[in-house]
Structures are given as C-alpha cells and as structure tokens.
C-alpha cells in the first residue's frame, strides 16, 4: 500500500509515492483547518491527556553529538537612507534618480 503526495519546492511542486508505513511531514499549505464544533471544544476541555516520561516508554535519550553553545539576537541598528521629497510622487522620482546614479537600473 502506498500514498501519493505533493511536496512544494522552490518553483513548483514534486509528486512522490511513498510505501506505507510512512512518516509524513505536513506543511501549512495543505489546507484551511476546520473549526471544531462546540461539543468538540468542550470535550477537549474535559479530556484526560496522559503524560509520559522517557522511562515510561522504556527509552533512554542518546548523548547528543551537537551542543548548543550560545543563542544571540541579531540586533539591527542600521537604518535606511530615506529619500526626500515633499510628495510621495516626488520621492518616487527621486528614488529613480538615486538608483540610476548608483547604476542599479
């Protein structure tokens, strides 16, 4: 038994067939989630959700070969050079001049 899937790539999509059992990673492009009915929302509020530790599952995490050493927020302090002009249209024309000067257009 197999399933056929579409996978988004940069400039289109791939079609693949995968034999079951399979682990599928689902991307948000797949659909619009439905809104659950009120009864379902209330049932979820009452549900008992089991919590398992690794020892409950009889597994032991392997020693990681990758160590996170540091997390750093990229601070953006630079600011754009704002093109001047007394109207949006004037600024548009001034932008064209600037890009032309820079040889970009």
């Amino acid at each position, binding site marked *: 038994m197999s399933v056929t899937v579409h996978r988004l790539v940069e400039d289109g999509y791939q079609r*693949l067939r*995968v034999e079951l059992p399979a682990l599928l990673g689902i991307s948000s492009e797949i659909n619009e989630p439905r809104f659950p009915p009120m009864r379902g929302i209330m049932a979820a509020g009452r549900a008992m959700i089991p919590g398992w530790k690794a020892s409950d599952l009889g597994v032991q995490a392997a020693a990681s070969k990758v160590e996170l050493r540091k*997390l*750093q927020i990229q601070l953006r302090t630079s600011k754009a050079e704002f093109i001047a002009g007394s109207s*949006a249209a004037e600024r548009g024309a001034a932008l064209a001049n600037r890009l032309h000067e820079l040889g970009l257009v």
Partner: protein
Amino acid sequence: MAGVLVFGDISDGQLTPASLEVATAGANLASALGEPLRGALVGDDVAAATEKFRGGFAALYLVEGRHYRPYSTQASLAAAQAVIAACSPSVVLFAHTLETREWVPRLAARLDTGLVMDCTILAVEGQELVVTKPVYGGGVWGEFVIRGAPRMATVRASVFERRQAAAAGELVRVDAPPPAPDRVTYLDQAAAVAASGPKLKDAKIIVAGGRGLGGKDNWHFVEETAAALGAAVGCSRPVADSGWVPSLHQVGLSGTLVAPDLYIAIGISGAVQHLAGISAAKTVIAINTDHEADIFTRANYGVVGDCREVLPAFLERIKQLRS
C-alpha cells in the same frame, strides 16, 4: 581520521554554483585544521562537473552510475557512505538543498555522528568545529559545537564566495554498493505556474510585494515595476497565503532565499522570516507607508509613501532616464 571532505552537487549534468561556495567553506576549515581538502561528486554523468570542481582538492572522489538519477535518498546514502569509508574524513560538508535536507540527517544517524544544517558560519576553535546558523525563524543566531566522526554540516547558499580554480589533485573512482530499494518513488515535478521573467533564486533584480499593497487589485503595481526593470516578481508569505499570487513567488525562510543585486520591497513590513530570505541581497529598497516598519532596518534606501503614488512616478522617471 583526517581531512575535510566537500560534496559537490550536480544538477542537469552541471556543477551547481553552491558547490563552489561549499568548497570555499571547506578550504577555510581545512586550512584552520591543518588537514587536507578533498572533494566528492555523485551522479550518472560527472564528467562536466568534474572539470569545474576538481581544482584545489588533494583528491576528488567520483561515484558514477545510473542509480544516481533521478535523485533517491537510498542512492545518495550509499554513495556518501562509500566515499566516507574510502577517505575517513574528520569533517564532511554539503550544500544545503532540498535533497540534502532530506538524506544527510539519515546519514548522520547511520554514522551516529553530529550534524548541523543550514550553517552560515563555520569555524575551528582548537580542534573543535563551531558553527552558526539562524534559528527561530531567522531572528536568532545559534552557535553549536559539532562532535562525532566525521563531523558534518550543510552550508547555506549565497553566503560564501565561489572558490576559484586552483591546482587539481588526483581523481579517485569509488564503487558504491547498489542502493537499497527506496520506499519513496519520485514521480514527476511540475512548475506550479509557468512563471514569466527570471527565476527568483537566480534573479539579479527582484521586485516584491507585501500585504501593505492593500489587496490583489493592486498587485499590478508590482508586476509593472518588475516588467520595467526586467526583474523577477517576489512576494511575502501573507500574500502567498492569501492567494494573490502562486506561492512559487514567495521570498523568505519558508519560501526562496534570494541573493539579488537589487531587491525592491513594496508594502512589506519586514518580518524576521522575510528578512532571513533577503539577507544575501546586496541593495535593498523599501517602499512603505509606515516609517517605523522593520523593513527599514534592513533597507539601504527607503521611501515612505503610498506605493500607488510612488511607483507611477518612479517608473515615469526611469523611462525618462533611459531615453
């Protein structure tokens, strides 16, 4: 166990530009470690790629055969394992691509070794391999130490310079065992919509629009500007999600990472994931009605104003300057 091994990539029979970028990253590491630099190519026809890639490696390992086209996870795994067994490197590098994202983690699991993907900085401290990569949507940088034998990493495209040809070493052919049958069959690939104009990934000029345009009815401003500049058309994620344009135009962490000379962002606020997508752009212009928009912290030049007034005047002036 020694040496830095760099896997190049072949697409449509040609060496990909990213292969030469990974070679640069590899050369830097090899030099810092004081170890030899070697390369590897896997494909059904490696001749053309070999000529472009072999410069600067002590040896270039070649795995060639019909198993390697079209791409399959199992074939890539078998080939890589065979090359690694042949030269016992201490570090292995790959370009970060759709394919390597899929099969290289499996290689790391098989070899029970450390792997970090999508690295933008790779360095040596003592004899340790320390890498940096964007995490949490790109706004945060994570620094990791990779351990294991061999240590492995994939390298983000458009971050490193392409390596210039240097003296070539020997060519070594490696026989990989026939791959295990793949549980995944690649059926076909279709372009979502035949996009007119240059492809985003390779485009030198990109004109991109965001939610600030106000609606699909205003999208023509983006298209007209792109057409006038010979640019590719890009968009932000909300625009793609709203269906104004096909998602193949999406620029950003979950779309395409672009590296144009000029990027014009129209009505794009500058969410962290979008900025991650344009980090390699040389010059960024932003047009937005909000002068506090985050895009202006990345843009080189900014215009505050309604694009419906800015762009017609911009295009008119471009036309005048060209005549």
